[in-house]
């Protein structure tokens, strides 16, 4: 069990919150809420130890836009592969966009 924190530059806070995924085997849950202005923070709780560098790489690819809405993201991970992690985060972000709250 490892708890990791990441942060990325962002714009004004998002308006809404969404949930995607489930803490099932090889899967993860992503909770997205409005963040503090200027910064997206990602808190990862994962059952797999020693993969901080991998999380950093996956998240860096996702939160690239410093003008994007600032989010507070919590990830509860049960051994998802980087591909699944990327898909779940994008699922959450597109649901937030669909709701017009990003």
């Amino acid at each position: 069990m490892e708890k990791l924190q990441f942060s990325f530059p962002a714009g004004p806070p998002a308006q809404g919150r969404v949930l995607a995924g489930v803490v099932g085997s090889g899967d993860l849950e992503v909770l997205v809420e409005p963040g503090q202005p200027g910064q997206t923070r990602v808190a990862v709780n994962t059952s797999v130890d020693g993969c901080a560098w991998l999380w950093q790489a996956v998240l860096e690819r996702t939160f690239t836009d410093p003008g994007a809405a600032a989010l507070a993201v919590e990830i509860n991970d049960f051994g998802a592969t980087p591909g699944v992690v990327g898909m779940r985060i994008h699922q959450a972000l597109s649901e937030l966009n669909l709701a017009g709250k990003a």
Partner: protein
Amino acid sequence: MDTSQLLKTVSFIEMGARERAFALLDPGSGHELIGPFERMKSPWLEPQGIAAQADDGVVVAKGSIGGQPAVVLAIEGSFQGGSLGEVGGAKIAGSLELAAEDNRRGVPTRAVLLLETGGVRLQEANLGLAAIAEIHAAIADLRRHQPVVAVVAGTVGCFGGMSVAAALCSYLVVTREARVGLNGPQVIEQEAGIEEYDSRDRPFIWSLSGGEQRFRTGLADRYVEDDAAGIAATVRELFAQGVPAQHRDQRIGEFLDLLARVDTARQPDGAYARAAFGKGN
């Protein structure tokens, strides 16, 4: 098979717990209580190296069914096998208790349980067992006022202490994918031996504990297709029937008589179980 009908059907089994809960409530009537953003997580999993889920795998959705107040309690089978620990168990037991309290105050709240669970969460041991006992007591209390409907759709099924909860409900709805049993197949195999009970023999397992068999042997009340709209309609019909004159556990004499006639010397199979318990087909 009617392909156009099949394509229009929305699978209930493929839905997660949250979607299932809202699929049963009247459209637009539902809101979630103690949802994931309240982060009522299990405090016991992380110290044991297991990632906790923000809603502890239980969704409480309050709204109406057929215009009458209702609460749907859905277990997420994908999180820790739908196992019940302290928090998830308390969410279910507390909701049932509040529904019974509503009824005593003149608000006719009814409850549906969507059970996908292996029973108690072993990592939370006695706290999970205590919660399940509270759920049993709460079902027995609420069903004096309103029918309590349980749906086991699959694919996890419903086992352990929660199979007792399913049996206590006024009505039990199952699909072909469902399984209901006190012990799961691997536990029985371990105890009885692989010659008697091979947990990898799926047709054999379903022929004894599958949804269709549970319906044919009188242990379930409705056998339904995997169709979200159809299951919602079945739940509404069962509520319209009201509280049954006798709940299944109150018919214990009948079941004990049937059990007494079972020939334990022979290897049971699906056909024998139907002949012994069921409607003979």
